[in-house]
């Protein structure tokens, strides 16, 4: 949950807004609103980007810009970042100038990219990856440095992950999911799938996404968030329902009500795959389902995913190519 870091930019022209408006294919959107709502911003656990195709929703007043032009960051984006923080921070321009005009700034250590060793256990590898992401830090600047389009082919997103490693800058939740996928590619005993949350606090909606992981009968997660209990979870949960319940419990600490959970399909380990990530194979309206039914549906989905892999492995072994692309949109109505 963040403090009121939302941009309180008044007077932004509609021309600027439309130029930086959200496209359906992008999950990272630029500033769309001017007014900040302190109480909701204060409660925002995570400034997750919206999924493509979702209805217009206010993201709790917490908005962010996106760097779409690579590195070094070009002038307009750079100045916009500083203008934004100067508005948000109580010390304003003075704070910004102090940093920008500093003759010397400490060089932030570039964390070493974790390298998998055969002697490492899967849990240890996940810890290593999570530590790497934490070393990059959660991005509180209000400008997302890496553009992530959720509808892009996996291969393209893996290129973005490589860029994240190369540039070594703070990241947010969606970037962490992409990076987590990249760093766990090849560890075929580990399955990865996105888990998206939509929560509500004080009449505002918030979005967040983590990378669910499954290995050897246990579920866990990798991710980045403002709040430490809304990101990585150990590979200790026996069912998917248990894992999601853990997140719901964490959200409750911040007085957030879980509204929707979206579970994606397992992400292929081949980084050159052209298909996009399936982000919402199962969509559950938590408001309409009871806790027990939610768990049941999640557990069923978990079993389905495991069986799907087993089926594909079996047919692959028998030199059969069996593509099972059933899109499962749950019958539970969504708002």
């Amino acid at each position, binding site marked *: 949950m963040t*403090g009121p870091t939302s941009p309180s930019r008044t007077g932004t022209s509609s021309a600027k807004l439309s130029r930086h408006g959200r496209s359906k294919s992008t999950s990272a959107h630029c500033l769309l609103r001017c007014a900040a709502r302190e109480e909701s911003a204060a409660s925002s656990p995570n400034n997750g980007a919206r999924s493509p195709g979702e209805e217009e929703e206010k993201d709790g007043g917490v908005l962010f810009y996106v760097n779409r032009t690579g590195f070094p960051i070009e002038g307009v984006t750079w100045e916009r970042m500083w203008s934004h923080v100067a508005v948000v921070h109580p010390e304003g321009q003075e704070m*910004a100038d102090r940093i920008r005009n500093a003759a010397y700034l400490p*060089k932030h250590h570039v964390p070493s990219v974790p390298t998998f060793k055969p002697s490492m256990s899967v849990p240890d590898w996940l810890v290593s990856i999570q530590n790497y992401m934490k070393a990059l*830090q959660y991005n509180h600047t209000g400008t997302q440095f890496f553009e992530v389009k959720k509808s892009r082919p996996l291969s393209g997103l893996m290129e973005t992950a490589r860029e994240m490693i190369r540039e070594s800058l703070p990241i947010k939740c969606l970037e962490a999911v992409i990076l987590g996928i990249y760093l766990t590619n090849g560890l075929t005993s580990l399955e990865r799938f996105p888990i998206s949350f939509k929560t509500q606090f004080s009449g505002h909606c918030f979005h967040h996404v983590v990378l669910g992981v499954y290995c050897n009968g246990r579920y866990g997660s990798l991710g980045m968030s403002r709040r430490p209990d809304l990101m990585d979870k150990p590979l200790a949960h026996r069912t998917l329902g248990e894992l999601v319940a853990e997140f719901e419990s964490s959200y409750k600490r911040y007085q957030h009500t879980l509204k929707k959970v979206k579970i994606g399909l397992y992400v292929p380990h081949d980084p050159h795959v052209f298909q996009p990530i399936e982000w919402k194979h199962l969509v559950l309206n938590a408001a309409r389902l009871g806790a027990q039914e939610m768990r049941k549906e999640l557990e069923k989905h978990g079993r389905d995913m495991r069986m799907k892999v087993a089926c594909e492995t079996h047919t692959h072994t028998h030199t059969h190519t069996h593509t099972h692309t059933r899109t499962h949109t749950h019958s539970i109505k969504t708002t």
Partner: protein
Amino acid sequence: MEPACRKDKPKLNSTPTRGDRARQKSAQQEHKQRQRAEIYALNKVMTELEQQQFESFCKQMQSQGE
């Protein structure tokens, strides 16, 4: 044209030399490093701000609860 004349032909100013490209690349790297340093300095400040605001929000909620 004789080969000797070709050698005397002046180079076009618009064509960057290898040295120019190397200098450009080096300048770009330095620029990126400076940007990275500023980003992390800024992120430190904004993280502290967020933490302070979150703590005061929690205190506020706690006192309201009481």
